[in-house]
């Protein structure tokens, strides 16, 4: 079911705000990863504002839902969503990658409220998500465990070791979100080392698979609901997205994987995101 008109309006505004943060933060730092942040904006916004059971005033609360950004380079979108959700002041976003700040290039689980684990070495998140999922079952807790993974990141063997663990232990409280933007650092994923038939791969590993347009807020919302409803096995949300979504010159290219806009480019980007 679609969001109400008001809700839809709210998310349109929120995702625009977050995209503006992303380009401003990377411009401020002179480095960082706008491409994979812009592709994940709807997925992250709807997750944190609609589904994650968290309390920004009490970020370490025991029974909270956990989120693990396995593709740790996408801190611009992660920090922006956390700040907008109230985990820390929005103004702090403009200390991104500063030597005397805490908003490091990759998330640090020790220092940033709302960050449940340090990441940035690709491939490690799903194992951690499984750890929370297993203990939630052991403790009889309803908490859920979410993990966002890049499509290039799927080339790390550990992802598939973990995917077997999730299914083997029937962890229906674990949800993997694949930001399937078709591009990694060097090139298109299919040119580097393809991950074709991704749905079949996850299904063969024992997962329930939902395939959606990752920029359609209604579809994203329904996918998270379906994951919650699905019992006895984990759910993988395969989200078709566009790397660099929302900024015309960043869209669908590997050039903006790890490059920051200069002042001129920032101005154009902000106009497009007005």
């Amino acid at each position, binding site marked *: 079911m679609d969001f109400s008109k008001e809700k839809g309006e709210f998310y349109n505004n929120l995702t625009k705000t977050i995209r503006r943060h992303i380009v401003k933060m990377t411009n401020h730092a002179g480095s*960082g990863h706008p491409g994979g942040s812009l592709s994940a904006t709807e997925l992250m916004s709807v997750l944190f504002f609609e589904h994650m059971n968290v309390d920004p005033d009490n970020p370490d609360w025991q029974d909270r839902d956990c989120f693990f950004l396995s593709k740790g380079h996408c801190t611009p979108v992660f920090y922006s969503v956390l700040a907008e959700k109230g985990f820390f002041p929005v103004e702090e976003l403009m200390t991104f990658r500063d*030597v005397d700040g805490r908003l490091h290039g*990759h998330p640090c689980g020790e220092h940033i409220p709302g960050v449940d684990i*340090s990441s*940035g070495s690709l491939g490690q998140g799903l194992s951690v998500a499984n750890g929370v999922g297993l203990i939630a079952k052991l403790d009889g807790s309803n908490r859920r465990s979410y993990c966002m993974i890049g499509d290039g990141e799927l080339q790390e063997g550990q992802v598939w070791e973990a995917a077997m663990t999730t299914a083997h232990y029937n962890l229906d409280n674990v949800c993997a979100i694949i930001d399937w933007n078709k591009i990694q650092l060097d090139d298109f994923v299919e040119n580097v*080392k393809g991950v074709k038939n991704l749905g079949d791969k996850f299904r063969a590993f024992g997962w329930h698979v939902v395939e959606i347009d990752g920029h359609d807020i209604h579809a994203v919302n329904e996918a998270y609901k379906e994951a919650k409803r699905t019992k006895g096995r984990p759910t993988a949300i395969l989200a078709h997205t566009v790397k660099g979504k929302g900024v015309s010159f960043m869209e669908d290219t590997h050039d903006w994987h790890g490059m920051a806009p200069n002042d001129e480019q920032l101005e154009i980007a902000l106009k497009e995101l007005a």
Partner: protein
Amino acid sequence: MANQEAPRKGFADALIRLGEKHDNLVVLDADCAKSNMTNLYKNRFPERFFNIGISECDLVGTAAGMAVAGKVPFANAYANFLTGRAFDQMRISVCYSNNNVKIVGHNAGTSAAQEGATHLPLEDISLMRSLPRMTVIVPADAVEMEKAVEAAYYHEGPIYLRVGKLPVPIVTKKEEPFKIGKAIKYREGSDITIISTGIMLDESLKAAGELEKQGVSAELLHIHTIKPIDKEAIIASAAKTKHVITVEEHSIIGGLGSAVAEVLSENQPAKLRRIGTNDRFGVSGKMDELLDLFELRAHRIISTANELLGHRVTS
């Protein structure tokens, strides 16, 4: 100011020159070909370049297989993910099997800069040094890098080569011979020995010059090969000066400082201070800011020398 050049550029240039001469040279990368500049080799020799994707363990294993098949593979990835993640593949498929694989760890030291702790390799030398049969080379600049790549190719056996990303001053000379395992003496001195590796040669040269003005005669040894280390050079210098400082863009645990401590304590006990990062993770910052933060600077070498020599320091 001295000429600056990115060590990775020297690496890529040398690789292509060797590739032109030797068609058994193959290059692998783990989705960082743009950043590691191995895409230059790819453009020149597309059929002898393999992007294995974001799969460092697979990368090292594949390189081992290529060595078994008779090629000389250079396996490239960011230093941390390569040495940390694929350590066991290096241990078994490369070193224990004695395969002729060149492991190239990029984004070395503070050159990972704003990427922060996950990407700053401050333990890679330590890990690689512990592997039997592994030779560990840490060049000072792009000029020495070119010679190191050449030497690595002609050396029979596993090598770890550490390559920085961002431009640093050129301080070595083209005509200076490069021999694996052989230290290079940059200054004669009698009061204290400074032993540097990698890009720390630059700050060490500055420190030695400044110490001279203060009336301290510093000898400067540049150790580009951390393993096997040039024991004779270290022992001879320490026998003369009795005071030693090591300087590295790496943890003081397990790297150059540890290697020198091992040599000195068994052969020629001397007063020793190790300068490097002190059992800590990195943070995000510009390369210069990180070098300041970690105090990998000439002023620290100078104050350490004076402290070690028991001089009162007026600053």
